[in-house]
Structure formats: C-alpha cells, structure tokens
C-alpha cells in the first residue's frame, strides 16, 4: 500500500529533520506517529505528499514512486492522499461547502472550480460527508464561524471528499479540548475502518495515540526508535523517545488542560472602542 524507504530530509539551514526513515503501511492500518517537538513528525507527513520535498529516499504509493513524479503527475498523486491539519487549515472566508468541495480541486478543471460548478456527483458526496460528520446545518456558514471541533470535522470531510487511498493527519487534536480531541480521533479512526483506509496520524498526546491507533511509530531526532503495537509502548520506550521523565502520569486521564473558549475579534477588542 504505502512504503517509505530511507526517507531523508535536510533543510537548507543544514538541519537534518529526517534520517533514513523506512516503514510500510498495509491497507486499512491506522498508524500513530509520536515523538517530541522537532523530531520530524510533521516533516515525515509532508514528505509523503511532497509538501516538503524530500532530500533522498523513496515513497511508494501502490508501487508508484511519488518522489520521482513530475508536476502534473504529482498533483494526480496528491489528490489520492487526503490531508488533515493541526490548525484545521480551512479557508476561513469560504463557506463550509466550498471548503469540502475544495477536496475535488485535483479532479476538476480550473474554470469549473472558478465558477463553483462541481459535478453533481461531487456535490452529492459533499452533502453525504457533511451529514456523516454531523454538520448538515452549517453548510452555508463561513468556516470562520465554526467552533474548533466543527472546523476539524470540515477538515475531515474535505480530506474524504478527495476519495483518498491514504489519509495523512498532522496533529489533528493539537488545538482541541480533551473531549473534542477524543471525538475527533474517534471519528477519524471510525471512518478509516469503515473504508479500510490507511492513515498516518501524528500526535503529541501519547495517551490518545494508545487509545485509538493500531500501531505506533516513535520518532526521535528524525529516526525511528520504536515501531510496534500500542501495548508494547512502555516506560523505557517512552524514555527512549522523549527522554527521562516520570511516565506514571501517562496512565492517568486528566492531565490535559482545557482550553479557554475562543473569543471573537469583537470581544477581544471590545474594551478599546
């Protein structure tokens, strides 16, 4: 399905973000990617769809080498890889529907997309996906009007609208409160299992990873230091990935802090006018 072979990325500054990373993902497997900040999680995910250009190594999706594709072939490969982002990365001023339909941009011509004349099949699919993620009521709202959890649901719908063969998920819960984070992780994993869709999900929360994924890959300084079942992830391995720390808290549930409700721009500046 997906095979990554000795993927290496050296940034122009000389920083080695990835160093010979290799692994396979079979169909339908949900892989969690953990590691400290700067360990290369984000670079690895972006190296697969070449939002970050790898320095060397190969990425094989169904036996075609993505690292060797030309520009238009790369676009065709990208549309088969749905991506979900940390800060949702929705186009804030577009409506929910436009954001979901933007998942079809790799399939339709520029003129069709310019006038928002998407094929009926794409529109039907977008409606179905929005119903699946529970946002039927919000279709014509701007993305900026939604809450964090709702935005990430739009992000999920946009990725699925691509008819992906693989999901790349970069810290999907980083800006969400613990409860919403669990709901979003559950939704992503359910969808993957329904469609036998493989996924690579980078997570900063080890507990969340252990709860939801089939397999965990641990990165440290751009190298894989652990690859196995979540149950095998014990204190000594966590120490190897993250460094020395008291890991007993990992078994408790409530160590995440809840986020304050987001203030709108008007509320924030209310005192000034």
């Amino acid at each position, binding site marked *: 399905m997906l095979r990554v072979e000795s993927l290496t990325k050296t940034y122009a500054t000389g920083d080695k973000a990835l160093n010979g990373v290799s692994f396979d993902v079979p169909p339908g497997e949900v892989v969690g990617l953990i590691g400290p900040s700067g360990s290369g999680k984000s670079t690895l995910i972006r190296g697969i*769809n070449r*939002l970050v250009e790898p320095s060397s190594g190969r990425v094989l999706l169904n036996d075609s080498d993505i690292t060797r594709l030309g520009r238009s072939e790369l*676009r*065709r*490969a*990208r*549309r*088969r*890889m749905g*991506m979900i*982002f940390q*800060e949702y*990365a*929705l*186009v*804030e*001023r*577009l409506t929910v529907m*436009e954001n979901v339909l*933007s*998942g*079809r*941009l*790799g*399939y339709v011509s*520029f003129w069709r*997309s*310019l006038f928002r004349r998407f094929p009926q099949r794409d529109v039907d699919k977008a409606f179905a996906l929005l119903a699946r993620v529970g946002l039927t009521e919000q279709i014509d709202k701007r993305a900026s009007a939604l809450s964090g959890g709702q935005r990430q649901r739009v*992000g999920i719908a*946009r990725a699925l609208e*691509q008819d992906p063969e693989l999901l*790349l998920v970069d810290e999907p819960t980083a800006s969400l409160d613990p409860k919403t984070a669990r709901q979003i992780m559950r939704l992503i994993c359910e969808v993957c299992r329904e469609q036998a869709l493989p996924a690579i999900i980078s997570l900063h929360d080890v507990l969340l990873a252990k709860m939801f994924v089939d397999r965990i890959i641990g990165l440290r300084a751009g190298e894989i230091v652990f690859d196995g079942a979540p149950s095998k992830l014990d204190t000594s391995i966590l120490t190897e990935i993250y460094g020395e720390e008291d890991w007993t808290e990992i078994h408790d549930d409530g160590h995440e802090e809840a986020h304050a409700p987001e203030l709108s721009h008007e509320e924030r500046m209310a005192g000034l006018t």
Partner: protein
Amino acid sequence: MSDAATQPRSWRRPPLIGNAWLRWAIIAGALIYLVAALSTIEVNWERASQGLTQGWRFIEGFLAPDFTSRSRDIWRGMEESLTMTVTSTIVGCLISIPIGLGAARNIAPLPIYAVCRAIIAVSRSLQEIIIAILFVAMFGFGPFAGFLTLSLATIGFMAKLLAEDIEDIDETQAEAIRATGASWWQVVNYGIQPQVVPRLIGLSFYRLDINFRESAVIGIVGAGGIGATLNTAMQRYEYSTAGAILIMIIAIVLVAEYLSSLLRKWVQ
C-alpha cells in the same frame, strides 16, 4: 519566605540603548541638529506680510464661493476629473492584479518576481506630477494624459499592496488547498483570493479617492480635469471661483471617504 522576596527591589524597564553615555549623546545630537536646521531656514518677513493680504483675499473668496459665473468651466472640469478618476482606477486595479500576483515572493518564481517588482518600483518612484508632465509632453494637453498618469500610479500602489498582502497570508490555508492536488490557479482562487479580496476592495476605493485628489493636482501641469479649471481661476485672480472649486473637491472627497468606509464594513 526567602530574603529576596521580602526586601523591596527597584525595577526599571531596560533602555533601548544600553550605554547611557551613547544614549544621551544621540539625544543631544538630534536636538542640536534640529535647532541648527531650523536656524538655516530663511524667512522673509516682509514678503510674508505682503502674502498675508493676498491670503486674506483668498480666504474671502473661499467664504463667498462663486459657483455660477464660471459654472460651465467648473462642470466640464469636474466631469473630466471624475471620468479620469473612475476609468484610471478601474484600469489600474485590473492591471495591478497580475503584477501583484507576480510580485508576491511566496507564490511567484524568482524571474517573474524580479520583473514585477521592477515595474512596481518604477511606477512608485515617479511622482504623479512628473509622470503627468511626461505624458502631457507625449500626448498633449487634456484628460487622456491624466488618465494615463493616474492609471500608472494606481498600478504601482495597488500591485505593491496586493503583493505584500499575499506575502502575509495564512499559508496553512493555501498549503491545505495545495495538498488536495490543486493547480497553481486553483490555489490562488481558493487558498489566496478569499484572504486578500476584502482588503483589496477597500484599497481600491481608497485609491479612487486618492486618484480624484490627484486629478486636481495634475490638472495644474496640463493633464486636464478640475485642476486645469482651478489653475485658470487662480491665474485670473478669481478667488471666489477657486474657492467654489475647492469646496466641491472637499465635498466629493468626503462623500468618497464615507462611501468607501460603508463598503469596507460591508465586505468584511
């Protein structure tokens, strides 16, 4: 409680320039230069007092504006100015869009970036009056020279601000569109355009109001419009007609300002 916490300690914000001697030297130097520079300005008080009487006549004309005796000239000038303003703003804004896209470093390749930045630099480095003198020499007196001048100035202004706006966008939104397999034009249409259009609309109305004011100025060097009428009135010492023209310019600028603020509120 520890000792340090109980004892009162003074605190002062660290100064911008750490060296106290250097700090005071810079402040003193700046003051001395200011005084020296002011003392070199020669004021001819005799001439200034003569000018006061002339200035007073001007203010009198302003207080008793005469809209009627030259009304035909005034209306023709206004019509020319408004035509020049609207056409040059539309043409300038349309041309500035591709140049602005090309001058945004985060979406344009280096050679295109260099060319577009050069166009902007040339257009911005020449002040409207200088361009107007050039175009009047090339195309003769009249509003066509004015139209070209204002279009060129609009291109520099709008393209620069558009390019800088694009460079400041939230790139994760554009990255997400790129990740779907979208083409360059689709990324611009979906990932960038929604982020910059509201400000672009606001700016183009701001430019409309600048262009109207500029049309009054460049008329003085022969590029048509209300400026030409104003210039003629001044040369004939018809201060009440000049006053009427100035009042009309102020009124139109105020209306444009009000309309553009309404519009900005509506698009945002």
